[in-house]
């Protein structure tokens, strides 16, 4: 199974750009969270490609750390989304752009 390293990095950058477009374009905060997950996954793919190039385990170790961070991030983010929905009755990301100060 031999693949050129450029194609792996190319796939990672295309997926990262798609996630970035999603974060910038969507106004629903659930979609923004999902697109952040896509971006983290693309970063993990870049680590896996690099680890595969040198046949070292460090790439997969970094992928595991990214996975851990994504799990912690999504749990806190979903709790924040629930809180915003209970207080503002909407999922619009622009609705929470000001503080009560």
């Amino acid at each position, binding site marked *: *199974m*031999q*693949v*050129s*390293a*450029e*194609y*792996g*990095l*190319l*796939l990672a*950058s*295309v*997926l990262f*750009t*798609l996630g*970035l*477009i999603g974060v*910038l*374009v*969507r*106004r*629903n905060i*659930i*979609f923004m*969270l*999902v*697109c952040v*997950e*896509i971006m983290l*996954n693309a970063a*993990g*793919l870049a680590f*896996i*490609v690099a680890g*595969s*190039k040198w*046949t*070292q*385990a460090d*790439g*997969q170790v970094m*992928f*595991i750390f990214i996975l*851990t*961070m*994504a*799990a*912690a*991030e999504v*749990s*806190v983010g*979903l*709790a*924040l989304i*629930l*809180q915003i*929905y*209970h207080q503002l009755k909407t*999922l619009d990301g622009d609705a929470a752009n000001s503080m009560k100060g």
Partner: protein
Amino acid sequence: MQIAFYIAAFVAVLSTVMVITRFNVIHALLYLVVSFMAMAVVFFILGAPFAAALEVIVYAGAIVVLIIFVIMMLNQKEEAVDQEKKWLTPSVYIGPAILSVLLLGELIYIIYEGESHTIGQQVVDVKEVGKTLYGPYILAVELSGMLLMAGIVGAYHLGRQKKKVTHRFLKQTED
């Protein structure tokens, strides 16, 4: 086996495009599961079987199910889809899309500037990953344990409902 990589990469890109263009959240999440499965195939072809298994278990299993639970709790109606259609107009997405595609072009240029390598000849198996994870990276493992603990505490604190004060003396001063 190269053709398997290209098919999986095509499926991953196409399903990710479907994720960011769907109006219904549940449809987007189902396409997200397809995208993660295709990424798992890519990881397997690149010689990282443990990462492929974790991708299926944690991303497609745990994280997506967590998001689906929250969508069930939010109890979205049909109007949510119409609201999404109103939000996602061409005047909104043209600008960010063009700028991001320019960045992608620069990334592709940088990738093709470097020299070419073939990857995926050798499989890095679970034993090697475990040795590295609990050898030189043991401090990072403990730090991610702390991160998960902070995530649990933060999610509990944020997700807690405000308790109503029913004490007869405090009732007056609370409002």
